[in-house]
């Protein structure tokens, strides 16, 4: 490390297996940046990790107010971890509002670093504090370290020629430096990153680097901290790694699908939280032939995707729940015309506008049934941020082989969350075949199906001799002419549904973690994977007979799902909704699955699922979710 000063103290170094840190501040305090940089450094250091950014609802809530608090939680470990942690061990609070909204989550005895200077009377009032919590003893359960971050930062930046307002904005680098020191991390990756990011603005770069180093050195030279912590690198599979968020992995996955299918990617989307990052990312990749289209509305984005699919491109549209509702009629046209495309739904808390920045899994039934008529669609759902890459490719493998639209259900937690990722070798990913019509066909029939998959041929404009008409009206099987024949409609409806059912032959069986059979199976889907697996593992460590499995193909289900369910006495289905997978599983397999529902805009904690497992196993009484003291704060 280049920054160690001669005055450094010898301190006790405490070795920990896992640490969870939360950075919280005003939305203008740069906490997402601080969290992201700490995460990158930690990833490079070799820890396993998971993150949970928590954005305020408003872009510019009043400074210092409770709704304006922005948070970023990271959990890192020397062993395998899958969730951003139930309870932070340390909290960095840049102002009273950040303290107030986050302190309730901190574990007893946890470390609290606050910017003392920000605890002025007016700021306390904005946060609804009658008196300073730093003085009234309410924080006695924690180790509180008040630091004059604002003042220290100002001193460190004395020689920098910037207005004081701008200097104030380097405080997050100061805090970052301090926390990097505390956990024995290098500042080098941040220095490198800052040089690239602020290179064009030398004064700002200088300010940020001075603040970063000052924070680091402050930890090193003062005796405020009795111990430093060390979380050794995790032992993971050898290979080349990077850090990736779910939305990044989603965009890269669809780009990879375009390469593997050898078809240009077309992405049509209307901006919507939390899916816009996918639009931002894909719009940067014109050199890969990616055409992005910011449509006038959700319906137009869906329609444009259909037009692109009709034209033979790899058609993609992306949205969140309210947008999926708007797209539903046009999506049905894609089902009726049997065109291959993918719809991304980065789910958020609903109904209606709901809580745009908060996560939920409540669009499963909308994806499954939210259209008129019997209109089956394929549905896939990634289980972790990095899995988004893999499932994006799967979505197109299915769409192109079966000539069917596919809904890809991500969520705000997966999209914004991140983890280390062993970079796949593109050579290991199989090519994706398309189902183009044979241009030498003499008597072309647009709805003549492949007998095995039931897919119709993909005959794209520009192909001589294959001119034909399609549309939303019912069509005669084979010729595709309009037909109101009773038998034909019955037959075509079965075809459309069986074509989706046939995908079952093409998807991997459901994998179980834990005993092959036993007392309890915890079944989940989507982003609950980490919490479910960890809870089941903990239960097994206590000698309980608990297995877990995550469904990543939701329509159709994996072929062995019914059989897997039958091997356990009980089935528990935790979901961030009112029990949507439970409903499907109960209806299809007649299994008395126990739903466990959390609709709080936040992911499950491991402990919550553990407690529910104990309840279902009869080891404790009924378990109620406990939202803690902060449940009605933060975010309007």
């Amino acid at each position, binding site marked *: 490390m280049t920054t160690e000063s001669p005055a450094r103290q010898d301190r006790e170094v405490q070795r920990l297996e896992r640490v969870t840190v939360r950075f919280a501040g005003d939305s203008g305090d740069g906490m997402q940046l601080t969290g992201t940089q700490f995460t990158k450094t930690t990833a*490079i250091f*070799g820890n396993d990790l998971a993150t949970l950014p928590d954005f305020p609802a408003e872009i510019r809530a009043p400074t210092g107010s409770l709704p304006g608090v922005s948070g970023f939680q990271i959990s890192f470990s020397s062993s395998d971890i899958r969730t951003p942690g139930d309870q932070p061990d340390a909290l960095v609070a840049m102002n009273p509002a950040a303290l107030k909204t986050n302190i309730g989550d901190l574990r007893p005895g946890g470390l609290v670093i606050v910017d003392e200077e920000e605890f002025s009377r007016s700021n306390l009032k904005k946060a609804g504090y009658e008196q300073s919590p730093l003085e009234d003893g309410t924080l006695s359960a924690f180790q509180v370290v008040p630091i004059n971050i604002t003042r220290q930062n100002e001193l460190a930046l004395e020689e920098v020629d910037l207005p004081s307002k701008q200097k104030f904005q380097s405080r997050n680098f100061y805090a970052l430096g301090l926390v990097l020191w505390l956990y024995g991390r290098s500042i080098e*990756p941040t220095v490198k*990153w800052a040089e*690239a990011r602020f290179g064009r603005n030398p004064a700002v770069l200088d300010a940020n680097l001075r603040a970063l180093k000052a924070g680091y050195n402050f930890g090193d030279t003062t005796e405020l901290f009795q111990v430093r912590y060390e979380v050794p690198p995790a032992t993971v*599979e*050898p*290979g*080349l*790694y*990077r*850090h990736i968020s779910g939305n*990044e992995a989603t965009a890269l996955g669809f780009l*990879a699908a375009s390469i593997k299918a050898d078809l*240009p990617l*077309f992405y049509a989307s209307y901006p919507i939280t939390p899916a816009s990052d996918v639009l931002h990312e894909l719009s940067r*990749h*014109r*050199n*890969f*032939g990616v*055409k992005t289209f910011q*449509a*006038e*509305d959700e*319906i*137009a*984005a*869906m*329609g*444009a*995707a*259909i*037009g*692109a699919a*009709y*034209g*033979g*491109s790899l058609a993609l549209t992306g949205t969140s729940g309210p947008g999926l509702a708007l797209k539903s*009629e*046009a999506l049905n*046209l894609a089902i009726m*015309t049997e065109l291959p495309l993918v719809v991304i739904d980065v789910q958020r808390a609903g109904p209606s506008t709901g809580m745009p920045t908060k996560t939920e899994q409540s669009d499963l039934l909308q994806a499954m049934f939210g259209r008129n008529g019997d209109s089956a669609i394929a549905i896939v759902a990634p289980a972790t941020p990095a899995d988004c890459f893999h499932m994006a490719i799967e979505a197109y493998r299915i769409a192109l082989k079966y000539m069917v639209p596919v809904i890809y259900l991500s969520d705000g937690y997966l999209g914004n969350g991140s983890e280390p990722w062993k*970079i*796949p070798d593109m050579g290991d990913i199989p090519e994706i075949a398309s189902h183009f019509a044979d*241009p030498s066909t003499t008597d*072309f029939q647009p709805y003549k199906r492949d007998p095995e998959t039931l897919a119709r041929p993909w005959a*794209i*404009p*520009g192909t*001589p*001799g*294959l*001119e*034909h*008409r*399609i*549309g*939303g*009206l019912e069509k005669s099987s084979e010729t595709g002419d309009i037909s109101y024949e009773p038998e034909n409609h019955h037959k075509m409806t079965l075809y459309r549904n069986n074509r989706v059912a046939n995908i079952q032959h093409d998807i991997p069986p459901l994998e179980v973690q834990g005993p092959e059979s036993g007392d309890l199976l915890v079944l989940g889907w989507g982003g609950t994977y980490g919490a479910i697996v960890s809870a089941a593992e903990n239960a097994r460590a206590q000698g309980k007979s608990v297995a877990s499995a995550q469904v990543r193909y939701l329509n159709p289900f994996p072929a062995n799902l019914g059989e897997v369910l039958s091997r356990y006495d009980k089935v528990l289905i935790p979901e961030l909704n009112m029990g949507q997978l439970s409903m499907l599983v109960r209806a299809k397999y007649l299994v008395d699955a126990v739903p466990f529902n959390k609709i709080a805009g936040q992911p499950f904690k491991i402990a919550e699922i553990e407690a529910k497992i104990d309840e279902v196993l009869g080891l404790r009484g009924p378990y109620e979710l406990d939202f803690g003291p902060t449940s009605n704060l933060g975010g309007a």
Partner: protein
Amino acid sequence: MTAPATNGKTGDGEELPVLTKKDFTSDQEVRWCPGCGDYAILAQMQKMLPDLKIPRENIAFISGIGCSSRFPYYVETYGFHSIHGRAPTIATGLKLTRPELTVFVVTGDGDGLSIGGNHLLHAMRRNLDITIILFNNRIYGLTKGQFSPTSELGKVTKSSPYGTTEMPLNPTRIAIAAGATFVARAVDRDTKHLEQVLYEAAQHKGTSFVEVYQNCNIFNDGAFAAFTDKDVRDDRMLYLEDGQPLRFGKERQHGIKLNGFLPEVEWDAPEDAELLVHDAATPHTNLANILAHMDYPDFPVPVGIFRRVEAPRYEEMLEEQVQDARERAAPEFEPLLHGSETWRVND
């Protein structure tokens, strides 16, 4: 489906076979009511298409919902009968990804201006190279006779037994306002003029918008008869000709002049010099707007090309971005996959 005119393998660049109206007639039975104005529009389109000298496979007709939207079934090209109001969105996706195709959108006053109004506006402002034909019959035909967004104030229909209480939209004014680079109007019964306008619209590079006054003889018969009937047409319609003074009447004896900002009829105008001269290519929309405001009975109804200007096209600019980006950075996926920071874990 009829067999292709050639061996069916003619691609771009090869010599084209001579196509005829018959080559653009599909094997589908036409289902419009006998006497419907749609027949005339279909016939002029099928007659005009061979003149474009484009292979059939490179043409696509996209429609929404409504009587007019059945159009694609009857044309032997690629065709897509989509959902209500959304044809411009599908056409946009198709044209952006396959710029070499010739794309037509067929819509109506309900489809294009009511349920699909938003899409129509945005397609026109983006100046995609597509041709939009809006069949305006001032009524909902397919749903059997409700008023439409172009029905006149007070119109009595099944859904407005006391008469409507809303002002109609003027499609041509909307197209001008939205920035369509080609705006024209034609009448179903004046087939020769209609064919010419369709041809010019298809030739234009950029969004072409053509409003066709179309008679729905079942639910709104004679909606335009007051000025389109053969014996009154000359006196009540004004055929726009680029570079020519605005004249109408059997002997072209009447003219339109400007009084301040307002048009005025000059009956029996002897001198051309006083009259407004049509200029479809003027960059300003003022003249086109003056013309679009002129309506029967105060004025003769202008038909023909209101506006024809050149402007950068969406699909072309997008394609240029792709080419430029390719020249600047080769599409190498690995660096992207690796991101800015990687680390290696060894055994």
